[in-house]
């Protein structure tokens, strides 16, 4: 069982390497969106520092959203997905592998880039560390929940516009706890509770998302 998981992650990573422009697009989008806010508002360092947690989290969320359709769209179009659906292995296991690969390719780079953007916003020391740690714990949940949305909108007309409407409301808890952790850290408060809540979101979506996604994919394939 673990073997097929490794195999599918390897395949998706290989595909991502061969299509590295797609990965770069998401990263550039993240940087651009995060850089727009200081241009549009007051560039005062104090204001920016206060803005940082929310802006960086929302930017990461939008960048993640941008990459979601790619999880299944390619496999759906070329018939790989129906082969997965009739494979002896459980579809939810294959889906879990694909979600993990999506996180590695589309979300992990955002986490790694976040400290740089954080510095731009004047975040330093503990709040910066907390930002990275919160993104590290929160983005897997974004990938997991996003996969359900991507599967539900697969093949349907207007899926592109429907996906954000479907998924963004479900991202709200992660956004609140993730940005909240950074805000609390800036105020010198305890952040443990935020991380516990982020962890709870992750575990809950880890249990529900692969199964729900598999069900949605089967419906899309009919």
């Amino acid at each position, binding site marked *: 069982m673990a073997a*097929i998981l490794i*195999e599918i992650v390897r*395949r998706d990573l*290989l*595909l991502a390497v*061969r*299509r590295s422009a797609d990965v770069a697009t998401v990263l550039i989008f993240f940087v651009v969106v995060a850089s727009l806010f200081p241009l549009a508002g007051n560039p005062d360092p104090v204001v920016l520092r206060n803005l940082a947690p929310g802006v960086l989290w929302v930017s990461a969320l939008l960048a993640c959203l941008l990459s979601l359709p790619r999880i299944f769209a*390619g496999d759906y*179009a*070329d*018939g*790989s997905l*129906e*082969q*997965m*659906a*009739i*494979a*002896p*292995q*459980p579809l939810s296991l*294959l889906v879990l592998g694909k979600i993990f690969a999506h996180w590695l390719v589309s979300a992990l780079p955002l986490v790694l880039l976040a400290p740089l953007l954080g510095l731009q916003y004047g975040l330093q020391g503990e709040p910066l560390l907390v930002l990275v740690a919160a993104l590290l714990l929160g983005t897997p949940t974004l990938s997991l929940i996003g996969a359900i949305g991507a599967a539900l909108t697969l093949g349907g007309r207007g899926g592109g516009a429907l996906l954000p409407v479907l998924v963004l409301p479900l991202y709200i808890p992660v956004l609140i706890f993730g940005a909240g952790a950074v805000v609390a850290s800036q105020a010198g408060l305890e952040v443990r509770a935020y991380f516990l809540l982020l962890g709870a979101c992750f575990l809950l979506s880890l249990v529900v998302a692969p199964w729900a996604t598999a069900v949605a994919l*089967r419906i899309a*394939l*009919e």
Partner: protein
Amino acid sequence: MSKLTVEHLACVRGDRLLFKNISFTLDAGELLYVLGDNGAGKSSLLRILCGILIPEQGRVHWGGQDVSKDNEQYRLDSLFISHLNGLKDDLSVSENLRFATYLAGEDNQEVNVNRALDAVKLQAYAHERVGSLSQGQRRRASLARLWISRARLWLLDEPFAALDTASIAILAERLRQHLQAGGMAILTTHQQVDIQAAVVHQLKIA
């Protein structure tokens, strides 16, 4: 030995009834041609048989077990190649084949992959990306799985489409071997290809 039993199958796509009351059994060594006009529901029938599509009515049994439930044995015993080839444009022919066989729970050793590519005359393209191949070559790359698969029941949707005469002969020969070894095959096709089999059924969907 398991056999395929199909009872009173009906299929509805959208608001249209494609077919109803389709029943047949397929035993070891038997071949079934599914014939019918475009849009008659040949592909839908195959998708029902492989368990992707849930029929409106009726049942499909493999060795007495329903195939629509999580039937792992049926998944191992059956192989479905649809009109979509299931190949990734950005992977090479051998990478695609290795993953496809891995997914199907079959032996995906280098030797077997090479042997299969040899059989469909794609050895020279093993490390080419599928995206750079012609339609017929893609089809052959997809069909190469038939030289690795241990599945007893083959469900092939238009296997001869886009193939040249030489490739058709190669595929027909492989089908003959498979049937002779006690395998079963269901094909949809527009071309009448001569395949030697102990029992050949025809099913016409109107």
